[in-house]
């Protein structure tokens, strides 16, 4: 993985020193809050409901065990002992004090982490497939390109004051695990005539106007990545609306002007910009790629794994649910669920972070990942080590066998923390997970993704949840709308609203009724919730959710 060079280290140290001085000037009154706010936001510092919040980037979701231990240190030394992994491969600390923030950033800087551009109207942390470099179905590891984008976009003068935030996601597989169609720009590594390039998708996004991105270029040669991205951003910066912040995203720009116009303007800008790139970026890319060379995978029998799988049903359930095929047959990708039933989705204690760091160091070639689904990944594990890993995870509440199941819920912080939220998300997720654990149904239900947002901004990705839940404020009371049929993968779709929302104490029973319809209507245990929904449509679910309305119709 990428290791900072002297330039990177000096840049970060200088940037942190600047912020330390800015904090001091805010505290002594030299800066007003109006002056200070954009400065703190440029360094990932928000003011939330109960306290400040520091959002730290985990570039393309990749980190090593030393970095994970530093995340644990921040949680324990300057926060309340835990951190919250987010859908954009960041970690958030919910309780830091203003005076401590510069020290926290310095500690991060010492291990090559930062909080730059995790807020503000700029290019945010570029996210990537959390199985990058490991997945059996991968064409090319997308992370070197993500690192190139990070270096290009960091402090890029033209893109520090965009109309709104700008999110880029990248995948190297046909299976989309990075939700590329719901980002401002989605990149998929593809090959054409033996050459590597990208399919470029623009204009996706969730929020109050959810849209699936459209293809801007079927094939963009690798060497054109930065000038083309610069062209896309330049057109957005010129054409994008600034009269209304809710319409200042590229999805609106593309929608209002049409993809053909956007493409024509991008190509025109590209023709003008392309010549300014003299190949230095490609030399840098080649250097970056050396940092992402695959580890020297060890070989050996998988006898220990086979024996545990045959004899230990608890291990087998975990293996069946939380492992994913690795490109090397005797290895596996391990997803560590930080979604224990009833726990806050995405929260890990400092101790849990250190346990995962130790496992990464001992068994996973010193690599970990954070997924947009708010879990932690050990990307390369020899199968014979899996029983030992499982045993260690069990000791620390990290062995929940629920990845991809109904309790593996994405939930934003909601009104328990977020200043923008209109209702709570976390307790809804906790109650759904607890209920289906008590019913012992979730393995029978199979693959089902519930995503919950506490406001229309959709940080919990509810639009692309198989079951999406949106918390709203209806006349001073929490109310929850349900959508069905959303899809975050390569077959991305925006869910359809079922009808009127449900009160807080009605939402879990409503989800139960939806699941009951699925269980009754599915053709076999192999037919997933999403497949059943696509086959039978909305009506059977509406009938179960709104029986009184059905009576009136009759």
């Amino acid at each position, binding site marked *: 993985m990428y290791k900072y060079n002297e330039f990177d280290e000096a840049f970060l140290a200088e940037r942190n020193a600047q912020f330390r001085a800015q904090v001091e000037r805010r505290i002594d009154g030299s800066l007003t809050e109006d002056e200070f706010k954009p400065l703190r936001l440029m360094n990932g510092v928000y003011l939330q*409901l*109960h*306290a400040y919040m520091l959002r730290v980037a985990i570039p393309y979701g990749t980190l090593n065990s030393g970095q994970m231990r530093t995340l644990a240190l921040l949680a324990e030394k300057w926060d309340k002992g835990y951190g919250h992994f987010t859908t954009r491969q960041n970690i958030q600390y919910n309780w830091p*004090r*203003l005076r401590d923030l510069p020290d926290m950033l310095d500690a991060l800087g010492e291990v090559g982490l930062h909080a730059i551009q995790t807020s503000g109207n700029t290019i945010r942390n570029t996210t990537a497939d959390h199985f990058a470099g490991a997945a059996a179905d991968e064409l090319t590891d997308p992370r070197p390109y993500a690192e190139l984008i990070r270096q290009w976009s960091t402090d890029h003068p033209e893109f520090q004051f965009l109309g709104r935030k700008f999110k880029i996601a990248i995948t190297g597989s046909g299976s989309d695990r990075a939700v590329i169609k719901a980002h401002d720009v989605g990149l998929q590594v593809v090959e054409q005539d033996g050459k590597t390039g990208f399919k470029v998708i623009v204009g996706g996004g969730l929020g109050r106007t959810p849209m699936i991105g459209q293809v801007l270029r079927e094939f963009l040669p690798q060497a054109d990545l930065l000038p083309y991205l610069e062209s896309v951003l330049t057109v957005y910066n010129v054409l994008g609306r600034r009269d209304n912040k809710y319409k200042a995203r590229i999805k609106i720009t593309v929608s209002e002007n049409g993809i053909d116009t956007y493409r024509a303007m991008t190509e025109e800008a590209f023709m003008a910009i392309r010549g300014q790139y003299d190949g230095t970026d490609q030399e840098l890319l080649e250097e970056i790629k050396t940092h992402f060379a695959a580890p020297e995978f060890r070989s050996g029998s998988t006898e220990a794994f086979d024996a545990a799988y045959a004899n230990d049903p608890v291990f087998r359930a975990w293996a069946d649910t939380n492992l994913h095929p690795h490109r090397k047959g005797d290895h596996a990708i391990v997803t560590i669920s930080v979604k224990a039933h009833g726990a806050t989705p995405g929260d890990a204690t400092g101790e849990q972070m250190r346990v995962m760091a130790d496992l990464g160091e001992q068994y996973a070639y010193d690599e970990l990942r954070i997924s947009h689904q708010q879990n932690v990944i050990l990307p390369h594990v020899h199968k014979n080590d899996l029983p030992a890993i499982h045993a260690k995870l069990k000791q620390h509440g990290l062995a929940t066998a629920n990845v991809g199941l109904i309790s593996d819920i994405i939930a934003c912080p909601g*009104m328990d923390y977020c200043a923008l939220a209109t209702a709570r998300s*976390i307790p809804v997720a*906790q109650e759904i997970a607890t209920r289906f654990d008590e019913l012992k149904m979730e393995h029978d239900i199979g693959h089902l993704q519930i995503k919950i947002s506490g406001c229309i901004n959709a940080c919990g990705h509810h639009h692309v949840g198989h079951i999406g839940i949106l918390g709203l404020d209806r006349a001073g009371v929490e109310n929850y709308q349900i959508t069905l049929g959303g899809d975050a993968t390569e077959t991305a779709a925006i869910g359809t609203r079922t009808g009127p929302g449900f009160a807080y104490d009605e939402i879990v029973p409503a989800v139960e009724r939806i699941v009951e319809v699925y269980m009754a209507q599915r053709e076999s245990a192999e037919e997933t919730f999403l497949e059943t929904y696509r086959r039978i449509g909305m009506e059977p679910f509406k009938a179960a959710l709104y029986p009184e309305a059905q009576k009136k119709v009759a």
Partner: protein
Amino acid sequence: MPRAFTPKVITANDLLEGDVIYFTAQDTWTRELSEAELITDEAEAQLRLIEAEKQNIKIVGAYLADAKAGPNGPEPTHFREEFRRTGPSNYFHGKQEAEANV
């Protein structure tokens, strides 16, 4: 008919801690909503907010929040302010934790 004015309190976050705070009738800040000044006149509320914002060096983001009179001082009328008064529902953190440690 103009809508009747809903009583207000002035609330903000503490500059250093980020903690939720309330403006008192004595122009000081308290962590207890029950000790806040309940303002029942609309014009007075705007003037008091200006007064509160002068203490920019101590506070962040002052605003007027709906409240009602209770037996022990002002109480929130909306669930958002109730969460700000107590703390999050997933952990015993925030004010609920601080008050337990008093």
